[in-house]
């Protein structure tokens, strides 16, 4: 499918993907801070999977689309899906309870699994378009200046947002778990307790 998708368009789509993944982490943060839903260890690890997928998207945005960058996205999402599926299996038997709040009828770990699958499928779909891997200087028609500038600014802002969310999650995890492993059943922030 050469020619249907060029590198600048792929960069923009990856930036939009970054926005989507960042929104997932923001929703988790809102639930944590506004509703006091302390993330369990498996929940924290699922967030790290999203951060890893964000990095692959950021690599596509900054250095241009490459198959290896999509591999970063897919492998991170696969690892995250393994973790979320493990947590789903912990609760799959009726009557064995749940963890945390539900959002639109599904718990966060179930949503995480669905989003991970969407990330993997989306990345695989993007890999179908070979035209994005043609070096930009070899491409026929460069995009107009202002449109390119706006897209580049938006893309870099999304990379910065994703980096900020990695920092925020790291800081939150240190506050909750201090320097060691997180408690199996967290009830508060270890570093904020007297």
């Amino acid at each position, binding site marked *: 499918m050469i020619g249907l998708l060029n590198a600048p368009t792929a960069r923009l789509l990856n930036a939009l993907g970054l926005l989507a993944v960042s929104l997932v982490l923001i929703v988790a943060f809102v639930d944590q801070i506004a509703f006091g839903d302390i993330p369990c260890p498996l929940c924290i690890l699922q967030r790290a999977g999203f951060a890893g997928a964000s990095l692959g998207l950021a690599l596509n945005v900054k250095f241009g689309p490459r198959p290896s960058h999509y591999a970063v996205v897919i492998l991170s999402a696969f690892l995250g899906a393994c973790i979320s599926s493990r947590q789903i299996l912990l609760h799959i038997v009726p009557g064995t*309870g749940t*963890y945390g709040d539900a959002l639109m009828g599904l718990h966060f770990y179930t949503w995480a699994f669905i989003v991970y699958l969407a990330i993997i499928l989306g990345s695989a779909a993007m890999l179908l378009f070979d035209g994005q891997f043609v070096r930009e200087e070899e491409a026929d028609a460069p995009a107009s200046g202002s449109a390119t500038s706006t897209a580049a600014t938006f893309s870099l802002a999304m990379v910065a947002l994703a980096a900020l969310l990695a920092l925020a999650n790291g800081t939150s995890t240190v506050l909750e778990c201090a320097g060691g492993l997180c408690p199996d059943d967290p009830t508060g922030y270890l570093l904020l307790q007297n």
Partner: protein
Amino acid sequence: MMSIPFFGILAAFLCVFSGQRGAALMLWALSMVGLAVLFRLHATDALNLVL
């Protein structure tokens, strides 16, 4: 220790900003190995179930 994957990925983001693609990929790989090890340690956690 649970924050290692996040700070590893944050360092990878900083490498992305500074144009060091190889270092970013290396830091990502190390972060994912750390994530897998932490998953192994927490895979059988007893959770605070809502019954």
